[in-house]
């Protein structure tokens, strides 16, 4: 009996050993002597059907604002917006947040060039986005730029924004895009007059760009933060806090209606 077990284990072990040695040989052959055969570069996505028509698919693009930096619950305005939308509709809502902290307009433009991002975008019914905050306030140390530099930053930003909208429209003709404007986080500081003017002009130019495309709506937030700005800002004095995000979220949600029933 015992002899049987020991012999079996020994034989099994020998066979296993041969198997592992062949694995090792395969490793050496594959890793050291094989020629590279990169997979075909063409991505052949199977034709995606438009997501379930009963489902509302929201894609969020942009920077830290869309990510929700500063909101301790991590929801950001996207989360609060969805909360509001859930009250309005019984359809399932699905969100994909593709925002990257610190992203600028050129980064977003590059991101939109990726196949998978485009695929997500194609499936979307609603797109919400924030961009430009990092172009204007270079990482929170804001507006130390001279008027000329700001003018330059604005020009290149507007060019990028135009191409961003163009890309979105090309990929997805129907989705409603909500472009969320900037607020002035420094409106309680000494040179508020100057900074506010800059932000206003920035927003105006962005809204003009948005207006060139169908179904891209510029949503202002400037007014939301005009009074008592500190109540709505996070401790970094730059990003909104929970209450700030809630207000943005509610504002965007108020623009989304489901009356037609076949809302795309």
């Amino acid at each position, binding site marked *: 009996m015992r002899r049987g077990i020991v012999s079996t284990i*020994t034989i*099994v072990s020998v066979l*296993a050993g041969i198997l*592992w040695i062949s694995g090792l040989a395969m490793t050496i052959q*594959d*890793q050291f002597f094989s020629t590279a055969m990169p*997979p075909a570069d063409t991505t052949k996505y199977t034709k995606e059907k438009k997501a379930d028509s009963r489902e509302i698919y929201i894609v969020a693009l942009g920077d830290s604002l869309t990510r929700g930096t500063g909101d301790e619950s991590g929801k950001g305005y996207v989360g609060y917006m969805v909360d509001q939308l859930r009250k309005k509709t019984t359809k399932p809502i699905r969100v994909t947040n593709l925002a990257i902290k610190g992203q600028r307009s050129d980064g977003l433009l590059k991101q939109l060039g990726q196949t*998978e991002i485009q*695929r997500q975008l194609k499936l979307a019914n609603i797109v919400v986005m924030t961009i430009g905050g990092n172009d204007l306030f270079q990482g929170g140390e804001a507006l130390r730029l001279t008027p000329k530099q700001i003018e330059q930053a604005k020009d290149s930003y507007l060019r990028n924004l135009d191409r961003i909208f163009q890309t979105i429209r090309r990929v997805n003709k129907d989705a409603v895009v909500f472009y969320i404007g900037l607020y002035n986080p420094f409106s309680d500081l000494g040179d508020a007059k100057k900074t506010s003017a800059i932000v206003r002009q920035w927003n105006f130019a962005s809204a003009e760009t948005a207006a060139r495309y169908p179904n891209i709506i510029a949503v202002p937030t400037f007014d939301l933060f005009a009074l008592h700005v500190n109540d709505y800002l996070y401790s970094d004095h730059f990003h909104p806090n929970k209450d700030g995000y809630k207000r943005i979220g509610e504002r965007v949600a108020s623009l989304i209606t489901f009356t037609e029933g076949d809302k795309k």
Partner: protein
Amino acid sequence: MSNLVYNEMLKIVRKKRLWVIVAIVAVLVALFTYAQYKRVQEMQERLGTTDWRTQLQQQIIDAQNRLNSSSISDEWRKYLQIRLKQQQYYLEHDINPSAPGAPTFMRMFIENAIDLFLPLLVMVVAADLVSSEASGGTIKLLLTRPVKRGAVLLSKYIALLLSISFILLTVAFLSYFISGAVFGYEGWRLPLLTGFVAQGEELNTANVHMLPQWKYVLIELGLAWFVCIVVGTLTFMLSVLVRSTAAVMGIMLAALISGAILSNMVSSWHSAKYLFMVNLRLTDYISGTAPPIEGMTLGFSMTVLAVWGLAALAISFIVFTKRDIY
């Protein structure tokens, strides 16, 4: 000779070590299967979709966000960057690197077990092969028989090799069948990419080629076997040198654990790459993760390990045949 080997196998089997190992593996695999299952479920719940592309894209975005925060160590940044580029590559080529299934689980299990868990299992068998004979006094009985000392030691070593093969078979078998009950047994033909080379923060994809998963798993098992043999040989040498089994275990454990710790902090200490314990993660070269020290390659690591193994083997034979037994 075959009788000697049989005799040694008999000892190993009679000590019931192998059954203990089988039980440990079974319990751990079940545990990890459950953990993995939970993770997949949570991921689906969070994203509201089972579409792997969305999930992978979300992981990429998460990594990008982490990269943008200022309080992140250089090593971690490098690791994230490499992984990010790799995920991007998978996405661009429409290949799902983690399609659920038992073979995928097997692959991940081996990748995570290769530097600590598998060597520990090997140690359980190897640590007392010789030292127990010395401490128990049976070594005298063994050596008074009309066989050369070298042959006695060789038979023990062969028995060790056989046990290692058996242990790996157990791991492969159990991880396949237990996880398959949850994830399904499919997925052997899934294409995977290998040949990524991490160069600093860049990912070189010039050598990338596709492998079916069965081949990938077999390659990883082969590497795991190689690692286990080297660790087994080192333990075997200690077992010859040190009489107390506990001391052998202690030394080996210290070496292995220090290897796991060192891998995370040696990036600036270049000569550390000649230590065997930072070279154990051979599977990382197949999947394309950045090595702990720049300049390490699969060939390099295998050579280092082979040199350590051969040296250990030579030392054990020399010491064992020359030593006075009293």
